[in-house]
């Protein structure tokens, strides 16, 4: 670690995002002061105006790349970080703002801003890994505080963090939830969505809506076919279902594209 035997230095960076994932660190109420004693928070603008110069041992990166300046800034962050960890759906998949990748950003800009020429933006919202090498990614919209604490503990202990890559379905079975899709006919992305939330939505009688993005080897065509046949979902419903906070994660992007009308498919 930089600085030899000292505590590892941690920097928290924000790109296009809602601040919710870095807030997850401040929301680790029981662990925060203990963690703060084990690491040196060197750059975390949401929490402190104290800024220590890099390089940093660990950089936590929230948000997606949407402007030319940010595309340059993330390269500088990579250069001064030993371990770079992306946190949340914006950083790992482009986030909800990647819905622009399926539309015309010029039209979006004119729609929201009276003087579009004042606003500098890229055509696409992209994941951090599309710009620089990433050492570890934490999924979720938002990330789970417990997973962030696990990652920090693992780094402090010099071991690999335990974060699952199986589906939400597995968590439902472990938690003893009733299957909302089979029992209630509620559309659910649980079979193709990565675990990590402990199946929150089905526990509240709601279908999974994909906060953690695609699980390992997701069979999205099979799920889409089942939703069409058994729950009578139509193509526009399927497009919207796969196209939310992880819309541009490759498996979800491919599946939503499959259900678009021919004339607007690109």
């Amino acid at each position: 670690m930089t600085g030899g035997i000292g505590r590892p230095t941690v920097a928290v960076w924000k790109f296009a995002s809602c601040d919710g994932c870095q807030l997850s660190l401040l929301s680790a109420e029981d662990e925060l002061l203990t963690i703060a004693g084990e690491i040196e928070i060197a750059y975390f603008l949401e929490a402190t105006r104290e800024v220590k110069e890099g390089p940093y041992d660990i950089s936590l990166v929230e948000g997606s790349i949407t402007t030319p300046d940010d595309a340059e800034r993330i390269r500088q962050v990579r250069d001064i970080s030993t371990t770079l960890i992306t946190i949340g759906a914006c950083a790992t998949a482009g986030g909800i703002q990647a819905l622009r990748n399926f539309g015309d950003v010029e039209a979006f800009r004119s729609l929201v801003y009276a003087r579009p020429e004042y606003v500098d933006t890229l055509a696409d919202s992209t994941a951090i890994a599309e710009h620089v090498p990433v050492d570890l990614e934490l999924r979720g919209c938002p990330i789970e505080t417990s997973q962030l604490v696990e990652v920090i503990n693992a780094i402090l202990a010099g071991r690999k963090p335990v974060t699952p890559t199986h589906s939400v379905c597995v968590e439902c079975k472990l938690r003893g939830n009733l299957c909302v899709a089979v029992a209630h006919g509620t559309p659910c992305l649980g079979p193709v969505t990565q675990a990590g939330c402990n199946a929150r939505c089905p526990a509240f009688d709601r279908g999974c809506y994909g906060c953690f993005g695609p699980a390992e080897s997701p069979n999205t065509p099979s799920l889409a076919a089942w939703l069409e046949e058994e729950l009578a979902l139509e193509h526009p419903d399927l497009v919207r279902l796969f196209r939310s906070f992880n819309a541009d994660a490759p498996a979800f992007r491919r599946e939503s594209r499959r259900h678009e009308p021919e004339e607007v498919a690109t």
Partner: protein
Amino acid sequence: MSHSHDRTISVEALARVEGEGAMHVEVADGRVEQVQLRIYEPPRFFEAMLRGRTYLEPPDITARICGICPVAYQLSAINAIESLCGVGTPDGTPMPDGIRQLRRLLYCGEWIESHVLHIFLLHAPDFLGYQGAIEMAADHRDLVEMALRLRKAGNQVLEVIGGRAIHPINVRVGGFHRAPTRAELQEMVPELQWGREAAIAATRLVAGFEFPELDQGHTFASLRPEQDSLPPGATGYPIEDGRLVTTTGLDVPIAAWPEHFHEDHVEHSTALHGRMTDGGTYLVGPAARFNLNADRLPSEIADLAAEVGCAEAVTNPFRSIVVRAIETVYAFDEALRLIDAYERPESPAVEVRPVAGTGHGATEAPRGILYHRYSLDEEGLITDAVIVPPTSQNQPAIEEDLLDFVQAHLHLDDDALQWQCEQAIRNYDPCISCSTHFLDLTVRRR
């Protein structure tokens, strides 16, 4: 650093605000010529992304505008859609008391979580002379531990009702996916009772801070629930609905918003600037709510407000931290009242069918009025969306404050002036990522 008559101060990245912002000050011949609050949060185009989505999706999508106040986005969106679709309206489908109680209770959780974050973790370090809460914890560990426990109590409310503290999953148009049982809510009572008492002690503590003088005579705007809409036992301080009122005498329903307020786009900011139709600036937030609704606080909390120097209207923005603390006490008090009154609704949601047209909705986000407007077609698909967050409404008034504040403090060196300006901005708890469409200080002294 310079004490000369001409100078430029730049804060390149403002800390302890949520989001990204910068401030630029121009000074010539000892006069402050210009103050710009620059918002460089990358634009995310929410209003455009909502087009073509269904009328059931705005609560989940707009929650993602802000990780600190997602419930505000969810419930403003729901108010707009339900009012259009005839739910909870005078001649429409009635909204069961249990669902109304759960919505207000959920919102109390968000006020607690957001207010405590701002008072202790973001703003108190300014008054006590620390760079941040973690540095402050070295000398005031008990204070920071109390703040973390208070936040946890608010987050617990969000988790029990909303299913998750950040971006709650259980909120939907029409109500909830699952309504909690009375027993589930009752479990939170002892911690909320502790929180109410701790928040009263915290209010007395922050009221003892030193406040620089500043009074700009701003117009304040807030919601105010109609007296005859209040359920028995409720005093009706504005949270999740109400009419639109101002200190200049406006009193209109939310649907009249476009006639009285608009947004300008200025070059130095990706947040639009809110103004009144007559061009005047105005402020929303805790001070606005308090100044327009102090009569709506329970008597014990009104007495506390008087004790801590808020017997009259609060016009010095530096004292907003005290109002935020009073509102935190209220949020705990109100949460306890709501839990006591709660009756689990027979069904967690009422059915909402789409109606073509335009609906308006607003709630009191922790930072002030959050207005949403949606237009739907016959199928319930969104054809137009407008979202006006609190920070973009406050931004022009903040710039006016800073102009006078910097002028009065030009004797300070650049570092000291920068910190004081940052503190003046943090008075408004600006949420920059919320400015859908925030700091960094530069002062140029010429």
